[in-house]
């Protein structure tokens, strides 16, 4: 009824291979973009930006990054927090070393540096797989956090051991530092997320993406039909870390402003982002967004419900909230192991026929 592909004919392969082949989907996508870019910046306030929207956008970037590595290429990583830290510290060092250059380039540069580090820690993946690789990336996580704690050069010998983001502007509008307005924070993260999602989609639908998925699904067969496993795995590590590094840089500079590495980029971060892609759906860009939204929104929603709605004590609510989130994750994985993206697909299949299923 609402959702039809009948009569939506394709006359070229380019039309057929576009991201949203169904007209209805395409229009919905344009509407979402229009609202995200045109409406939300006008109405967003500090509370929404700092507790919901900005964390969602940044985690979504990290989730897309990890999804490329784990969901598309099948290489499990527990080092996301560590790679985000690399992005944050690289961004900080670039910001202090080249204060005249636009912050956008610093963030991209931080992504590139993280990509390099990611490739380095990705090298063992050529020899080890599965759980063993997960443990190797866990080592990267602990090593990187330790490194940024122990070597004062990384935090410019500051007494507190923290790194702080000074004020930087894009097109004359401050996006980092204490004078940043909510909409500016939101916009810069949104632009980065949009670019990252778009690039990720393009990569995953082409040759590169197919080589990743081939490695994920059957690595020996992939090699025999002509996929270079070295190249496929290392490009996955590079692209994934590039995105994760951007997320780390934004997390530090735009969102938090001041960072202590163990607190902001500890092992919990790695697990949080991993949960996001598992709940959202492995091997799906939409799933990364959905998972990030779910895990960012759910605690905020529960807190409002328990403290604001039911009048519980804050500390009690905080404990109960953790239990509920944990239980929901378990329930969710039992009901739909392939994540929100799969629910969405199933829902669409149903809607195609609804209300006349025969």
């Amino acid at each position: 009824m609402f959702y039809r592909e009948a009569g939506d004919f394709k006359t070229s392969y380019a039309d057929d291979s576009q991201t949203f082949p169904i007209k209805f989907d395409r229009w919905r996508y344009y509407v979402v973009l229009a609202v995200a870019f045109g409406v939300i910046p006008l109405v967003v306030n500090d509370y929404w930006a700092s507790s919901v929207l900005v964390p969602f956008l940044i985690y979504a970037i990290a989730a897309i990054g990890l999804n490329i590595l784990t969901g598309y290429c099948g290489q499990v990583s527990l080092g996301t927090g560590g790679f985000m830290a690399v992005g944050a510290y690289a961004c900080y060092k670039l910001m202090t070393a080249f204060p005249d250059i636009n912050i956008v380039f610093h963030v991209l540069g931080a992504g590139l540096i993280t990509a390099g580090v990611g490739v380095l820690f990705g090298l063992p993946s050529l020899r080890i797989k599965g759980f063993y690789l997960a443990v190797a990336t866990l080592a990267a996580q602990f090593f990187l956090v330790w490194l940024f704690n122990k070597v004062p050069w990384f935090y410019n010998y500051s007494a507190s051991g923290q790194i702080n983001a000074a004020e930087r502007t894009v097109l004359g509008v401050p996006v980092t530092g204490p004078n940043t307005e909510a909409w500016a924070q939101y916009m810069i993260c949104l632009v980065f997320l949009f670019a990252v999602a778009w690039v990720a989609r393009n990569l995953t639908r082409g040759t590169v993406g197919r080589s990743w998925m081939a490695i994920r699904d059957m690595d020996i067969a992939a090699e025999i039909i002509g996929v270079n496993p070295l190249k496929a795995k290392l490009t996955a590590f590079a692209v994934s870390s590039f995105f994760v590094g951007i997320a780390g840089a934004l997390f530090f500079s735009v969102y938090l402003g001041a960072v202590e590495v163990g607190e902001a980029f500890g092992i919990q971060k790695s697990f949080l982002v991993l949960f996001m892609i598992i709940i959202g759906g492995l091997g799906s860009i939409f799933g990364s967004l959905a998972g990030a939204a779910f895990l960012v929104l759910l605690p905020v929603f529960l807190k409002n419900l328990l403290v604001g709605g039911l009048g519980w004590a804050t500390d009690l609510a905080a404990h109960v909230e953790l239990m509920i989130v944990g239980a929901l994750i378990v329930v969710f994985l039992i009901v739909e192991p392939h994540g929100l993206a799969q629910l969405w697909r199933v829902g669409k299949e149903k809607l195609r026929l609804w209300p006349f299923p025969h």
Partner: protein
Amino acid sequence: MNDMSQGYTTADGRKIGGTLMEMKNITLRFGGVVAIKDISFDIREGEIRAIIGPNGAGKSSMLNVISGFYIPTEGEVWFRGERRPQMKPYQVAQQGIARTFQNIALFKGMSTLDNIMTGRMTMMKTGMAAQALWWGRAQREEDEHREKVEKIIDFLEIQHIRKTPVGRLPYGLQKRVELGRALAAEPKLLLLDEPMAGMNVEEKEDMSRFILDVNDEFGTTIALIEHDMGVVMDLSDRVVVMDYGKKIGDGTPDEVRNNQDVIDAYLGVSHD
């Protein structure tokens, strides 16, 4: 055996060319186990060459040597008139050798279309930056290859499952998709490891027809392993027979069928 150095003509009138691949004194050892012992044979351009033998005879090992997955302990592999240096499997694929697997080895999470597109991996040249922007060349290349792949999809009559993830397909169709993936590489030499294992008669007939059509229409040289003797004798131009890692027969189906060693290997021989 007649002299075939300059090629020959088959019973049904197809011209078979010169040597495409030659295995020279191949030996393959795994520790103390000898999988292949001093085997030599050749594969000629345009022919359908079968490798048969009882279980454990070393047929699949031989196919793995050809496709570069195993490196022979001794002996030489010659392809298109040149000795093949030691290379990785993906490099062998780039030389124009494609294969299917005994136990289907498709990419289960990907659609039929993507699986077959992956077969053209070695021919896709656009760099990663261009693909990231999906602009001009990347899109054009994708569409060009899509056109070729659609021809293969038509040829194998699998249009209706184009966008279905292959994990959901029945066995017979999966085998067909796998053949499609190998064909997509436009191979000089196509290796089929038991293409008809586990199929019913009808599916076998379909598959035989596809194999003959591939050979006929694209002129692809085919080397196949198969247990169904009826199929082997019907399809192949020449047959290599292996037993316990040794070659015990080589020739046309008729020659092989009347070879006493082959009969002994298949039926057993009394030792009194």
